[in-house]
């Protein structure tokens, strides 16, 4: 009866180790990334309408064709993030088991907390500002029309969110690659189809952008605008990632007693509370390897972590960095 009512059922206690340390941890990470990315991509593509309102008398004129709005969430951006949510791993299964401290990331809410959500929202607002105002500069006072601008902003939006996802994904399986490629090609394909001549002749009310995609995808102005807009929107994300990579770049020198550590960890197994009391357990003496590894891994936060200086000055940092290398090379 308990089995039928429970979310998870285990018959042996040893299963708990894998469930918690491997799958629980991965699951927390995946869900956190998934939710923050969803917030980002939806807000950035919707908020441009607020800025457009300033220029169209606040008449709620949509900046996109209806079909783009429909297909954006379904075809153009859904599959890559689903692949992220299914496959993403920062450390392999063996690594998760041998380093239980990593589980503290979830307990300390390091990947999903109000601050990170606010940061994601602010980043989405910044993205929408760039997505609107860059094409505005190009299309304002010009002979180019509203529908071409719609397609330009569509292109820039899809490119931006795809690149953001590419930065977010650390564990690339073939499905991830396929999903990204398919989504991008779906964008071009579906835009060409919904803006084609045949469909317009069938139903001019539903497909009211005939010929725009054919015109716009051949126009260098549209491409150059979309590319610059994309690059500007992802620039903060690139910068934060780069900063993280640079500041936590593992040193080439190995610590002399790294070899002992994996053996020691395996022997210790999983005992409640024991890891914190082990004085010879060098990993736990410093801030904890968890924050370091996941702060390199949690490059998704768009605000650099506050106590950067403290982390890099940890005495045990070097050993942890090497341990991370070893864990990654295992898996």
């Amino acid at each position: 009866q308990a089995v039928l009512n429970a979310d998870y059922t285990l018959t042996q206690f040893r299963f708990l180790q894998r469930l918690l340390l491997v799958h629980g941890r991965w699951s927390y990470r995946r869900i956190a990334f998934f939710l923050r990315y969803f917030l980002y991509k939806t807000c950035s593509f919707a908020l441009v309408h607020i800025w457009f309102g300033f220029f169209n008398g606040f008449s709620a004129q949509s900046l996109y064709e209806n079909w783009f709005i429909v297909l954006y969430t379904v075809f153009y951006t859904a599959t890559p993030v689903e692949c992220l949510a299914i496959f993403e791993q920062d450390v392999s299964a063996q690594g998760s088991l041998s380093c239980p401290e990593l589980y503290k990331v979830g307990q300390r809410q390091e990947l999903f907390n109000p601050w990170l959500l606010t940061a994601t929202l602010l980043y989405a607002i910044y993205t929408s500002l760039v997505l609107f105002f860059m094409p505005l500069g190009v299309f304002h006072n010009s002979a180019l029309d509203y529908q071409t601008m719609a397609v330009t902003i569509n292109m820039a939006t899809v490119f931006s969110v795809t690149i953001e996802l590419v930065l977010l994904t650390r564990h690339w399986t073939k499905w991830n690659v396929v999903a990204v490629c398919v989504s991008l090609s779906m964008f071009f394909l579906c835009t060409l189809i919904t803006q084609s001549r045949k469909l317009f002749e069938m139903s001019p009310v539903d497909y009211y952008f005939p010929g725009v995609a054919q015109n716009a995808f051949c126009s260098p102005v549209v491409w150059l605008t979309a590319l610059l807009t994309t690059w500007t929107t992802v620039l903060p994300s690139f910068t934060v990632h780069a900063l993280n990579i640079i500041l936590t770049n593992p040193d080439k020198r190995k610590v002399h007693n790294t070899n002992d550590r994996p053996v020691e960890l395996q022997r210790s197994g999983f005992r409640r509370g024991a890891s914190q009391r082990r004085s010879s357990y060098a990993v736990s003496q410093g801030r904890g390897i968890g924050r370091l590894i996941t702060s390199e891994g949690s490059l998704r936060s768009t605000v650099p972590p506050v106590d950067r200086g403290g982390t890099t000055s940890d005495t045990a940092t070097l050993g942890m960095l090497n341990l991370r290398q070893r864990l990654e090379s295992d898996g």
Partner: protein
Amino acid sequence: MGKTKDNPGPLSRRPDNSAFKQQRLPAWSPMLTANSVLPFFYIMAVVCVLLGVWLLITVQNTHQLKLDYTQAGSCNICFEKRKVRANANQDCKCTVVLNIGNTFKGDVFFYYGLMNFHQNLRQYMDSRDDAQMMGRTANLKNPSAYCKPYITDDHGLPIAPCGAVANSMFNDSFKLTYHSAEGSPDVHVPLFRKGISWYTDKNVKFRNPKINNETLTQVFEGTARPPYWQKPVYNLDPLDPNNNGFTNEDLIVWMREAAFPNFKKLYGVLNRASKPFTEGLPPGNYTIEISYNFPVEYFQGRKEVIISTISWFGGQNNFLPIAYLVTGCLVLLLAIILTVFWWKFGKNGQNMEE
């Protein structure tokens, strides 16, 4: 993820030991270091700056001349006249003078520009009937309800083309004359007034209703012209019978709504077949005789005439080249800051201590 074992018996409910289900798919994890990240920023900075410079040079090679003629010279009289609605039936012509210093080499494009005219208002953009303009006979006498209040006229006849977009069509016309320096006669500048709209617009989106041995006038019988128009749709271009009806190029160009309140639309292209326009527009004095019909005082708008040469990148719009340059410089700055960070903290910083 509850793994239950049947006790005893085969492990029939175990998930497959496939790579997919056991999360062991082969994967690649990027191991990024400062050595790969920093050069990337520098390369992107260089690319942006080079693109910006190239685009700036391309744009600077185009010429543009803008003239706001809303109240310029004799057009002020017409401006005052158009303030009164009752004068709408009266013609008003005015002339403006402009001077071109250097030859406008190559193809020269003539635009009319409007300021503060919101073609992007939602109710305005909805107020059209694409099915009618596509030539569907069913919709010709039965315009869609979106065209309200321009669906039927006072006598109950359906309006063709219906809607506010068509009704507000820009109806100023321009005649450009070139005064060469010597006592030679003034030359009328010939313009191509066709081929100014998109191919798909002219051939797909806007078609006249089917003609079975009927003239265009007969096809449109039983419909009325929009209230603000002086001429009915089948007689928009008296000179060219093919340029009438819904496929009139000026109408098509107007119906392609602009994105922002300040815009310009193509009026014509210079016909370089005969002298002295074979090279482009020669320098000298020009007068434009304007048939001033479009009232702009109601919405505090301005009207202008723009003469411009074009490159592959379009007319004179400096925004994108400058944006590329600014972004390139910004990325360069970021790259330098990141290099400084790397030098001070990442390379041989505190993480050396043991």
